[in-house]
């Protein structure tokens, strides 16, 4: 699960945020979701972001994942300024370098587990035999080798999230972003997902997880706490 291109990237850093802010202009006035955050994520990092609801965790994660653009500051992804990339280039970057895991899974309900995992590979024009091999490998990796032909509706929440993790890893991203990945799961199932994410990180993928889950955050080597759009503290272990 390593990504050599990421490993050897220019300054040894996948994402580098420098004084980034995100302000939403709303009818009632501007809302500052993220204020002046500087942050570097290196290959293999295992980071958790915590903080009260509305403090800007998701917005920061979305900026790191290049689906949201900062209104101030610069965001470098593997050395290139995300602001200068076209929508198409950003899509390609997300497709090949970034994996997303969502609280609500967002699997496609009409596709089987297998097809859900295969989909991003097809989008990346991976050859059919390679796709087959990779999908099999991933489903086994997340412990669902026997459930390949099941639709999301036939899977439990934990199983759906495992398929979603396999899907996020499909194109061997160097960075996996997860927004409350255990938010919809019970404690024991959440624990299983946490263990799986641990393994993903141990196998070489940098991980940034937004979570309220104490157990999940506790496994990270860098724990960021946010408040009112700012980083209040960072604890390394």
């Amino acid at each position: 699960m390593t990504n050599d291109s990421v490993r050897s990237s220019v300054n040894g850093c996948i994402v580098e945020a420098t004084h980034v802010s995100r302000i939403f202009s709303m009818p009632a006035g501007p809302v500052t979701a993220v204020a002046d955050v500087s942050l570097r994520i290196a290959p293999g990092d295992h980071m958790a972001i915590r903080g009260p609801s509305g403090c800007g965790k998701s917005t920061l994660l979305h900026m790191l994942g290049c689906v949201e653009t900062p209104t101030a500051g610069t965001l470098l992804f593997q050395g290139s300024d995300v602001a200068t990339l076209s929508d198409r280039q950003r899509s390609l970057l997300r497709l090949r370098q970034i994996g997303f895991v969502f609280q609500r899974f967002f699997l496609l309900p009409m596709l089987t587990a297998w097809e859900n995992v295969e989909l991003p590979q097809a989008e990346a024009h991976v050859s059919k035999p390679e796709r087959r091999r990779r999908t099999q490998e991933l489903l086994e990796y997340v412990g669902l080798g026997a459930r390949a032909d099941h639709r999301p509706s036939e899977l439990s929440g934990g199983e759906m999230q495992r398929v979603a993790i396999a899907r996020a890893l499909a194109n061997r991203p160097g960075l996996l972003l997860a927004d409350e990945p255990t938010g919809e799961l019970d404690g024991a199932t959440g624990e299983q997902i946490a263990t799986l994410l641990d393994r993903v990180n141990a196998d070489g993928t940098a991980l940034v997880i937004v979570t309220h889950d104490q157990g999940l955050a506790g496994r990270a080597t860098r724990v960021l706490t946010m408040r009112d759009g700012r980083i209040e503290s960072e604890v390394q272990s």
Partner: protein
Amino acid sequence: MAFAWRSLVRQPARASLGVVGVAAVGALLFDMLLLSQGLVISMRDLFERVGFDVRVTASDALPGQGPLLANAVAHASAIAHLPSVRAAIALRLANAVVQKNGARGQYTAFQGVAGTGAHPWTILRGHDIGSGPDLIVNENTSRRAGVQPGDRVTVRAFCSGDTQALPPVPFTVTGVAEFPFDTPNGTTVATSLDMLANTCGGNETGEADMILVAAREGTSPDAAAAEVVTIVPELRVFSNEQVVSRLEGGGFTYFRQISTVLTTVTLSFAVLLITVLLTVSVNQRLGEIAALRALGFSRWRVVADVLCESILIVGGGGLLSLPLGALLAAGLDRILKRIAGIPADVHFFVFEPGALQVHLLLLVATAILAALYPIRIVARLPIAATLRDEVIG
């Protein structure tokens, strides 16, 4: 495409509604297209089957309503000698009451022909007219007046300009024929031009309503028409094609206009229906779409999926619309023809490949147009905000 198909069958009821809607609208659309050209095409067919390529008249009036053509018989024989002409006949139109020994008279159209070439009718029973007081009748006349080949009848003619009652003239029915321009209930009888003139009082010898000209094998109707003009410059000479295009420019344009208006209205409904269906479907999937975008699917890819769904719905409906439209056209044609007194061989709805092409083109346009609004939603979808809304909402 496969992906779009899977998205569609997720909501089978909705997809079916779209397909059925397009099938119904498409059937109407197809019929409008058949209607817009139908009369013109079947008139052209009819002219071609009658076997004459050029008609010569004294004025632009409809056949039988304009002034008579003087010296028509002489003109016809002169025209028949032209190198590009195979045959020419003079045709005079009148009306008559045909009566068989004291029975009730039958009112009929009355034609007289003179000249070379086949007569513009097809003998079904008996034989064609000779030079004497011979009469051929169509099936309707045969049935209603109770006349058969061999019967003796009297004919009282009503000729152009004459208002006074003319004395009955005895004829012998020689055959039953089919006249190409007969309406389904129309009654027609025919004889030679001389006998018709005789029945009309004998004071209009050699006059006719029109001369019908057949071009020689390998000569174009237009070339024949051009040659005819040179010897009768004072007369109106039209090839069938020119007659048809005059019809197209005249009363037949109403059909085109009506069908254009109805087509537009019909298509607007189809576009609205598909737009609504796709928009509802897209709005239900915003979270999934945003997730796909976050996972790196290009904007074009998610847009193409919506377009494919539209094409699948419209394509499915479009396929169904063809047999449906054909059935509907056959039914409507029968109804319309019962109302209007037009030749039995003329149809309001006529199939031609061009109609199919336009149908296809309009359906493709419908699919694209209908997809525009949902495509806009998908293309402009803010990824981060949608992901956030989906979790909060």
